[in-house]
């Protein structure tokens, strides 16, 4: 995903529907967190949707209407707040800048804004990035499946070093190590401790550069390269 052409290819294949499951999840995370990518997806939807609209209508079974009304309107209060995930992602993204102090401040920012707390949701994503274009890692927390997974997007680790993943905020008084990021990084979500959506919504993921094999002290020793705020997906 190094060049903008690759990223537009990802957006195009997302809309076409041919990404594999992991890539599709990456794309969904980018739609939430990255306005440029989201605009790319919207442009592709506009290019290809004439195909869908050229289909001959197909008669819908009559009983489906009542089912749809119950499923949609029946479960939702008329005054239910529609949460604008992209808008919130933009706000959070603006506070996700490298550095422990800033990450801690970011956590404080959210705590001071109870309105920004996410609803109870099963899946969270964080797009971890440094200053500069494009994300380095995409992390996702899937409560239903009980997993945390991290996929490198553009990050490369220097010879003799390791990237270590940390969780900050969400009630933690210091960074908590989630382990050294390997090629296929997947750990149980129970490693985060108590899993609830409010605490997750206050959690920042960060990646530091450590000696090979990870920090010898249990706390970050090297520079923090990438950070990202966990954002609830829909």
């Amino acid at each position: 995903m190094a060049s903008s052409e690759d990223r537009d290819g990802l957006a195009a294949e997302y809309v076409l529907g041919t990404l594999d499951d992991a890539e599709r999840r990456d794309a969904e995370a980018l739609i939430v967190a990255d306005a440029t990518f989201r605009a790319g997806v919207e442009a592709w939807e506009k290019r290809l949707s004439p195909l869908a609209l050229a289909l001959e209508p197909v008669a819908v079974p009559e009983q489906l209407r009542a089912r749809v009304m119950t499923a949609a309107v029946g479960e939702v209060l008329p005054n239910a707040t529609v949460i604008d995930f992209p808008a919130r992602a933009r706000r959070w993204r603006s506070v996700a800048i490298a550095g422990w102090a800033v990450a801690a401040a970011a956590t404080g920012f959210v705590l001071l804004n109870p309105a920004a707390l996410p609803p109870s949701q099963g899946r969270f994503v964080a797009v971890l990035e440094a200053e500069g274009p494009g994300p380095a890692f995409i992390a996702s927390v899937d409560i239903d499946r009980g997993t945390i997974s991290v996929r490198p997007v553009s990050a490369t680790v220097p010879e003799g070093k390791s990237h270590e993943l940390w969780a900050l905020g969400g009630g933690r008084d210091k960074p908590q190590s989630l382990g050294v990021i390997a090629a296929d990084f997947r750990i149980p979500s129970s490693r985060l401790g108590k899993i609830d959506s409010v605490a997750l919504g206050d959690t920042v993921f960060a990646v530091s550069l450590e000696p090979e094999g990870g920090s010898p002290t249990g706390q970050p020793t090297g520079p923090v390269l990438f950070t990202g705020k966990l954002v609830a997906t829909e």
Partner: protein
Amino acid sequence: MNAIAHDPDLELSDLLTQIAGGDRHAFGRLYDLTASRLFAVTRCMLRRPEMAEEALQEAFVRIWQKAGAYDPGQARPMGWLATIARNQAIDLRRRSAEREVESLDDDDGQTYGIMPEAHFSFEMKRLRDCLAVLPEDRQDMVLLAYYQGWSREELAARFSRPVTTIKTLLRRSLAILRECIDGKL
């Protein structure tokens, strides 16, 4: 005498605004106006009718919840609605074991129908002309993926090419389409 021409886009946009405010009647009206067109989308992606119905139902639940996010400056309402229906169908197709159950041979008989060319929108005519620039097998790949939700693996099996080649061919084809469509704006 009412001289105002009937504009379906405008009506759908208005309905979405009303739905965002919690108007159930507007939601019912939107369903009546669009369900058969959106069902066409989920029906060609999901060959089993009960799954196509489930996808349509989920799509309308999302439309009810997300109507406030519709931006008339960004997309025409029917395209926006079709995108939601398609995404629900893609997700359902992936979640289900349908890909395993369904043999490729069954997919040969395409059950979805395209409207006569005389009824094509301006955008569809342009897209058709741009698709025609691609070699025939690439056109088929794009259309099978878009309409029927075929994965790269399924396309690889059908076209006897490695999966990585399919990815390359799809991306190249899409890049050509983009140049063609955007160039003709």
